[in-house]
């Protein structure tokens, strides 16, 4: 990539006004100067807008008469790269992996700026799906809280100097034979592993320890016991007709949620004649995203998992002719479940999110007895991303403490924040001779290290990945590094004494290892094709091995099983937004409402209503846990009694301004037990310790109040009568009368359909929408005042018993009603209907009466309460606590979408910019539009393919078929607003319950 490549931006819609006092925050001048130059963009366009606003006032006319327009410049390339067309977006295939989540992606680059991440449909793992964290990762690129240059003891230095010093240290340690440790997260990049191997060979005194923030050590060890290999098998949830999950949040955070969501919904969709649906049973304490989607959810305490698994084992073993063991049975009657499982032999799946080796071993044996291996579980394509064995880390910390470690190199880990005994780690690292960290973002661990060698962000770097064995993908830079950073791999190469560039290393590695498998003629073609596709998946044999597990050591496990009173148990979990805390400094993620609790900008102690009543706790009260942790309480229907669920990933201390002091860090509550870190705690002491905490919750009412908002039916009812649960739609249709002639839509009539059966509530659409449409972040205080700005929201309702409710979800965006109540009331006609059935909103015409919002029955319109975006003409009134208007962060804005000013209404536009773009493409190519060509951001991000968009005028389109489906209905259709958004009823597979 040549330097000139990013030289200039032909045109920018946003204006980058230089801000005062930001000199120190500005990234490395050289790199950014090439990206954009303040001089090149008009520096005071605000004045013009200001005058425009006051156009008709007397004084300004006089001013206007005496002032000039600001000069705007247009700066072309010196040498224009052939493949770049200014004003048109390019897409580069790449890979998102942060040590936890994986997605094969396309990066949308517009005039040199990556502005959006989209799923790569070619990937056989993610199939074009993404999740919220993947979508939001684009914003981290422009995070100000990154390490901007190499530093020694906090002082800026050059790469030469830091290399020299580190190599000296390494060599002296090597000479003395001292222990040096390389601490990394699980590495899925084969070429990185290659580079690290070289590095380890060059310094044989270095030991490689893998530390995963959220450990899967129990599973690795159990599989080692079962199959002799520390692996995490992959799953085919789509092949499972019965899924039994023990607290594995596989739709939200567990292992590979995007892939699992794709698989999960595949056999829950009732379209194209599909009549079958999987059945999902979830055992868990806290209401997880997965649990809230289950057909049946059983509340258990985390510690009860073992006894339940034991009982289940015995029940199945008894029927399948395997050895049974004597043990105490659990309180829950599992007979029917066991029967069901046996009925679905080979087509069922039992998974557990536990990090207890024994639990995982029991799960393995159950799956084995059910013959699921080879059918729904594949040990030949294991996941590579979790490799850490907790014992290793424990030993390491102990050694550090004892002063046995003379050097540490850390890559992609932040144990000072997320290691449970972080105090020990901190004391330990102080005793280590030299410590090197290769962080991307400002973090707690790097702050304590002698040497900071900042790594590129993945959008700036070359990389490759083998997330699942045999399925490779590539990661290519979409922008030149913004700061003075260096790929970690290159650091390793330098320390090994190699001058190679890492991209060359990847090429070499691929030439050696992947190219031969491809059958392509010529490496160049293969390489270009792989880069283009972003993936390389050599043909795999479809037959999966069906290993038999020797049932050894089970008696030992069963002897441990006993039911005792464990008191109050605390369950620690990752939530869908900030995950393990690595991306906590991302304002989009912080403002993402939790799919279950709808709380933003906080973690909290979720307790069951009964528990709260007994202790007279209310939402917003504070409780102390083990006298140490003070957390706000949330009464969460569906929470198991006597358990408290708390999300990890909050309470960062060293991060950017966004994550700082948001929530409480509960990693210290994780305890090491039975060799592995356990994410629950028994016998905790809980006391009320105050009240008055203000949650920023986007939805406070849980009940549908008996209104036909989300319509549902059981599978049985549906099979008997396809309109079941949706009888009202027919009724409304019958009475669909109008006094006057309806308007015609001569060309297109855009419509959207949401399958409530597919939508799991993962909220990827929310972030995708925010990224695509420049939706502002407003901060906790504003969300608490119900001023959130998301154009799409996911409504969540409970029904049934408050202690054990069923959960339903519904994404709601602008319904684009053909008889829109909002349009009638706008005094200035700023919102009206387009000839393509879109409820248009002209921001620049809006005067902000909010009448439209009042009159919207769906309440999908959003008002710019303050100047969130710095687009306002009045100065010094910006409300941007999360720094979204910093010059750097504004680079993420989509130049095709107006940045809305203070005082205007905005709302979902069906991604009109995408519609217009694709229409134009069709016109330029002299052809008709294809169905499915236009995909709004939400639909594109959806890993469940729950959202379908298309032309209702085309009878062959997918959307037309959805609209004529018996399950289709419109929200509040009895109001005769004629929405262009349809919903397909939710069907629950509760039929096989007896």
């Amino acid at each position, binding site marked *: 990539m040549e330097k000139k490549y990013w030289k200039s931006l032909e045109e920018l819609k946003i204006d980058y006004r230089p801000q005062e006092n930001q000199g120190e925050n500005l990234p490395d001048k050289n790199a950014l100067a090439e990206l954009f130059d303040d001089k090149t963009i008009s520096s005071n366009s605000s004045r013009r807008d200001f005058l425009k606003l006051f156009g008709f006032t007397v004084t300004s*006319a006089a001013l206007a*008469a005496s002032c000039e327009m600001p000069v705007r410049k247009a700066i072309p390339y010196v040498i224009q790269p052939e493949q770049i067309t200014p*004003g048109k977006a390019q897409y580069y295939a790449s890979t998102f992996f942060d040590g936890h989540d994986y997605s094969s992606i396309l990066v949308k680059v517009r005039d040199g700026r990556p502005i959006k991440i989209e799923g790569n449909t070619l990937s056989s793992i993610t199939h074009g799906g993404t999740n919220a964290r993947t979508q939001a990762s684009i914003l981290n690129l422009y995070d100000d809280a990154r390490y901007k240059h190499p530093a020694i003891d906090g002082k800026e230095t050059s790469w030469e100097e830091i290399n020299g010093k580190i190599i000296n240290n390494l060599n002296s340690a090597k000479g003395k034979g001292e222990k040096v440790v390389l601490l990394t997260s699980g590495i899925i990049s084969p070429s990185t592993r290659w580079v690290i191997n070289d590095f380890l060979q060059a310094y044989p005194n270095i030991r490689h320890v893998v530390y995963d923030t959220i450990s899967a050590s129990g599973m690795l060890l159990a599989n080692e016991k079962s199959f002799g290999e520390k692996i995490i098998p992959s799953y085919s949830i789509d092949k499972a007709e019965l899924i039994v999950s023990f607290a594995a949040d596989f739709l939200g955070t567990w292992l590979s949620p995007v892939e699992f969501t794709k698989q999960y919904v595949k056999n829950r969709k009732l379209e194209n004649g599909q009549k079958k649906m999987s059945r999902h049973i979830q055992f868990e304490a806290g209401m997880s995203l997965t649990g809230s989607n289950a057909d049946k959810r059983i509340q258990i305490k985390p510690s009860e998992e073992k006894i339940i698994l034991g009982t289940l084992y015995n029940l199945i073993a008894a029927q399948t002719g395997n050895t049974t063991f004597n043990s105490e049975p659990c309180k829950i009657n599992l007979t029917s479940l066991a029967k069901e499982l046996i009925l679905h032999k080979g087509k069922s799946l039992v998974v557990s999110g536990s990090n207890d080796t024994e639990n995982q071993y029991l799960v393995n044996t159950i799956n084995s007895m059910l013959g699921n291996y080879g059918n729904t579980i594949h040990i030949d394509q294991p996941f590579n991303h979790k490799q850490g064995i907790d014992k290793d880390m424990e030993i390491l910390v102990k050694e550090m403490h004892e002063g046995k470690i003379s050097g540490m190199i850390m890559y992609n880990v932040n144990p000072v924040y997320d290691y449970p005994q972080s105090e020990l780690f901190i004391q330990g690292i102080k005793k280590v001779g030299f410590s090197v960290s290769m962080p991307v973002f400002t973090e707690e661990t790097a702050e304590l290290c002698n040497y900071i060698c900042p790594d590129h962000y993945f959008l700036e770097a070359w990389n490759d990945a083998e997330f699942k064995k045999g399925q490779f993908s590539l990661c290519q830079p979409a922008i030149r590094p913004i700061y003075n950073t260096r790929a970690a791999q290159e650091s390793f190469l330098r320390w090994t004494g190699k001058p190679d560039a890492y991209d060359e290393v990847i090429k070499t590695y691929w030439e050696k290892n992947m190219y031969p498998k491809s059958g392509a003629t010529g490496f160049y073609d293969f390489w270009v094709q792989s880069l283009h596709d972003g993936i390389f998946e050599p043909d795999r044999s479809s037959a999966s091995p069906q290993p038999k597990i020797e049932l050894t050591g089970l008696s030992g496990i069963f002897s441990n099983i006993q039911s005792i009173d464990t008191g109050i148990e605390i369950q620690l979990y990752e939530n869908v937004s900030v995950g393990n805390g690595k991306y906590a400094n991302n304002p989009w993620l912080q403002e993402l409402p939790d799919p279950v609790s709808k709380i933003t900008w906080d973690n909290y102690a979720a307790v069951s209503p009964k528990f709260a009543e007994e202790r007279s706790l209310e939402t917003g009260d504070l409780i102390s846990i083990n006298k140490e942790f003070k957390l706000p309480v949330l009464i969460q229907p569906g929470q198991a009694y006597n358990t408290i669920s708390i999300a990890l990933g909050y309470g960062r201390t060293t991060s950017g301004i966004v994550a700082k002091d948001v929530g409480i860090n509960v990693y210290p509550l994780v305890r090491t037990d039975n060799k592995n870190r356990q994410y629950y705690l028994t016998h905790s002491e809980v006391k009320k310790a105050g009240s008055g905490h203000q949650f920023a919750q986007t939805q406070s009412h849980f009940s549908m109040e008996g209104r036909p908002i989300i319509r549902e039916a059981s599978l049985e009812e549906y099979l008997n009568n396809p309109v079941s649960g949706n009888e009202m739609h027919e009724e409304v249709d019958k009475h669909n009368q109008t006094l006057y002639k309806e308007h015609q839509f001569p060309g297109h009539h855009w419509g959207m359909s949401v399958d409530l059966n597919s939508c799991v509530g993962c909220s990827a659409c929310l972030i995708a929408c925010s990224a695509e449409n420049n939706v502002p972040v407003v901060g906790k205080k504003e969300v608490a005042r119900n001023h959130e700005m998301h154009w799409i929201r996911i409504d969540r309702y409970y029904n049934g018993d408050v202690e054990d409710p069923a959960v339903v979800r519904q994404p709601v965006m602008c319904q684009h009603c053909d008889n829109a109540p909002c349009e009638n009331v706008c005094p200035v006609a700023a919102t009206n209907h387009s000839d393509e059935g879109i409820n248009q909103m002209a921001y620049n015409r809006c005067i902000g009466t909010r009448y439209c919002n009042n009159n919207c029955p769906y309440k999908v319109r959003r008002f710019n309460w303050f100047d969130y975006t710095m687009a306002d003409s009045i100065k010094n009134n910006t409300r941007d606590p999360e720094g979204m208007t910093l010059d750097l962060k504004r680079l993420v804005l989509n130049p095709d979408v107006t940045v809305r000013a203070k005082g205007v209404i905005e709302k979902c536009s069906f991604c009109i910019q995408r519609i217009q773009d694709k229409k134009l493409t069709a*016109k330029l190519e002299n052809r008709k539009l294809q169905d499915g060509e236009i995909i709004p951001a939400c639909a594109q991000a959806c890993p469940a393919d729950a959202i379908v968009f298309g032309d209702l*005028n085309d009878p062959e389109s997918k959307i037309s078929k959805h609209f004529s489906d018996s399950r289709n209905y419109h929200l509040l259709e009895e109001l005769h607003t004629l929405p262009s958004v349809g919903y397909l009823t939710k069907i629950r597979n509760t039929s096989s319950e007896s």
Partner: protein
Amino acid sequence: MIIRHNPVFHSFSRVIFFTIISLSSTLTFAEDISEPLGNPDHSENHLNAFSLKKGERLFYGLISLGENMPSCASCHYTAYTDTLNWNPSAYDIAGSYSSKSIEELRMVLMEPGGKKMTEVHAGYNLNDEQVELIHAFFINLNESQAPPKKPVINNLFIFILLHIIILLAVIDLFFTKKIKFKAVHLVVILAGTIWITKTVVVESIAVGRQKNYAPLQPIKFSHKVHAGTNGTDCFYCHNIAERSKTAGIPSANVCMNCHIIVREGTNSGKFEINKILTAYDNNMPIEWIKIHNLPDHVFFSHAQHVGAGKLDCAECHGTIKEMDVVHQVNDLSMGWCLDCHRTRKVQFVENEYYETFKDYHAQIVSGQMDSLLVAQIGGTNCMKCHY
């Protein structure tokens, strides 16, 4: 274009220049003393204030360069001018030559390579000292001042004055009654109000509009020469207009396709073309000034209008082919856009995309309708342009 060779005019202009210089030096006196003359940064520059003054005089022709020889400044302007001067301004030259050696400047002045320069500079015979003085003047010019800007007439004063007069008229009409004839009051009030209203309305509408905007560009690029005389196709340079949102300002390498050979222009000689070469060699982009600006909330795509709509460039940009300095021909107001959308026919039959409009398509095929206007297929929808 207007090179003033008239000797009478010339001596007159000397007087004018002298007056301007002396005036400006008195005006800038206050600033001068605030900045110490012996600036340590410039102390190595051995040229003193006297020789600078001398160089300046030489440049403005106050020291004769020979009989009937126009001064440098008569072609190389230092003041603002409304007319296009193909010759590089003094600031332009200062920018290019202050960094070069005296010898180079002498070479260019005395033995120019270009045809045009040779013609114009014939007869000038500067000695080495004079060249050095002029060089010093250039260095000083380059460091000291920004190029002159178009003077701004301040309406604010008139505006306030009128308000005061109207107020006085009102007071006198009812209270003081100094003037007997009430018609006087009425005329003053009426005329004043009309003028104020007119200003307010006209100026308010004009806020954000740039009709007839014709800024001076960093390079005196003539569309008349390129597109008119030489007949270059618009799309040769603006080659992405048919497929991208922007028409694209050509990158320097596009210029170089021709200018690798064409090194001297008809009007400006070598000086302007050299700027491209410099930019290209130094890998520095040319910072053109954007003429056609739309507000941020307007989405305009050239691809839609030129690529799909098959509009001719001139329909919006005017006869660029006849413009030496491009100016904005239309006001680019929303009303102007709508007027066109309401009257323009769609490429309905030609483009297969429009088959989506089944009814219209059938009507056109059967001859019930002969054409379709943009407005009929949603050309006046808000979200055609605003999103």
